[in-house]
């Protein structure tokens, strides 16, 4: 699950939040929110994307900017909701 999920999120972030010709590398530890790549408003589209794709519901109180700040953080959060 981990690698697929990681790639799914990386692809989404690159496609939706970066310029096409941006030379920025996105890894599992790249700060997303604190670096400004994704802001707390844009985060909602990422959250919605993950909820729909994975058929889960992330409660608002769990969807903090810290929980979405890196892909690793997001994966750790998602693990709480994905049934293996």
């Amino acid at each position, binding site marked *: 699950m981990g690698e697929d999920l990681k790639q799914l999120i990386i692809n989404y972030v690159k496609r939706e939040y970066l310029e096409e010709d941006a030379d920025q590398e996105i890894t599992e530890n790249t700060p997303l*929110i604190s670096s400004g790549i994704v802001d707390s408003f*844009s985060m909602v589209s990422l959250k*919605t994307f993950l909820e729909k794709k994975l058929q889960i519901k992330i409660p608002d109180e769990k969807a903090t900017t810290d929980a979405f700040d890196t892909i690793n953080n997001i994966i750790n959060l998602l693990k709480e909701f994905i049934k293996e």
Partner: protein
Amino acid sequence: MSHIGSYDERYKNFNWTIAEKELDYGNNSIYNIGYYCSDRICEKGLGNRRALIWQGFTGEVRTFTYNDIRIYSNCFATFLKEVGVRAQERVCIFMDRIPELYISFLGILKMGCIAQPLFSAFGEEALLTRLDDAKTRAILTTKKHIHKIRRLRAQLPELTKVIVVDAGDKPLENDEIAFDMDNVPNVDHFDIFKANRDVPSVLHYTSGTTGKPKGALHVHSSIIAQYITTKWVLDLTADDIYWCTADPGWVTGTSYGIIGPWSNGITQAVYDIGFNAQKWYAFIEKHKITVWYSAPTAIRLLMKEGTELVQKFDLSSLRHLISVGEPLNAEAVLWSEQAFGKPFHDSYWQTETGSIVITNYPGMKIKPGSMGKPFPGIIATVLDQQTFEPIRKPGSVGLIALKPGWPSMFRTYWNNKEIYDSKFKNDWYICGDRSSIDDEGYFWFVGRDDDVINTAGHLVGPFEIESALLEHEAVAESAAVGKPDPINLEVVKAFIALKPGYEPSDDLMINIMNFVRKKLSPLAMPQEIEFVDSLPKTRSGKIMRRLLRAQEWGEDIGDTSTLEND
């Protein structure tokens, strides 16, 4: 003892000349904001005082003294002059919160140009609308944001100077110009543009219910109100380290993130980072922030992280907290008392007012949930919505209105005098918000008087969102309204009827959300989309946005027949 002392005494005896005298405003016929925020502080012998402590999201810290910002802003002004930009032309600043943003703002003013700061998260459509309307001559930006501008150049013939402040060795395209303030010769003296009081200085765009965003035009003498409100409301003193979390793409970030603190000769800290509770607290601890000006949305996000996190940091340096952008709910005031040992003080104002007009003052009794009382020199009331006469009965809800004449009041909407004129009734300026006044003179916010959506303290126009939505290939018609949100006060919800051949789906919903985000801004992105077969309309075919809004807020709209005839 706070600067303001007794509010009642100050209100009774106030005259704006108090601020002018403190500023020596107009001495030697100088009225330019750029001078008062840098050169004047140096002339007072404070050139070595820190003006800016800047920290990037990676932790890098840079510090600039008042002498530094004086010289660097001279460099920007000289450069603009050399490349052929002329006084009163609009110069846009389109960058994240880096030192160049703050310093170039002063340089633009010293050169006599009109500074037009725009939020760096704006998408292409939002950017195009504002640059086209202002016929902007030059834009200062960074490598990160240059792509958006490149895609718009062909549609902006007046935009002849595109300046990249961090180009480094990255090649630029066509006629783009690199300007690195750290690698140009120091300019110790610049012949500052001789502005008079009423010469335009700053153009900030704001949204309305209908039409495109409007540019609220301010003038150099706005500094009189920005200086004294900073001193009396934010209560800044020489020893303070002040942090304003607002982005200068919005009016708070210029009035109180540049002009207010620097005209007072204060050290301010800037953190170029998105919201992150831990990092924010660490920033306060590291730089020993004493006065903190933030927004209710940020405070509610901090509440969400809990008081346990607060206790992991030494935040004892904080002595005064203020909030702006949207009503500060009583729970947030009470929480901040519990978490930081002091309450956030709500302040009310808007792009058009240029400075704080109604607020809670240091030392004054706070009624949690109240906006506070009018600033000395500001005559504020609530008006009857039909007669536009002041309502005398305490507790009655009316339109917030101000007597024109305070120094930082906007002077017009750029290219839109008609809408400007429509903002005045019976010699009152109508703010567009509703409130009541209690028997002790405290104002209590009720809501907007129009369909504009206040999301996280930023006004978003439904018309702009609906126009963007209609550009999506699947959208036949749409309505954008504000829906209640526990963190952001309101968020955008869109009702969408699809064109034949399109079916509602999760993928389409996310696609439309991102479409609007990229075109306009993250703030304008619908956080919820409801697909409908058709939208409720008046007999003349107008979409009944108010009905949809009332539905979201659980309000009883009553007899809809009047709406149908609207």
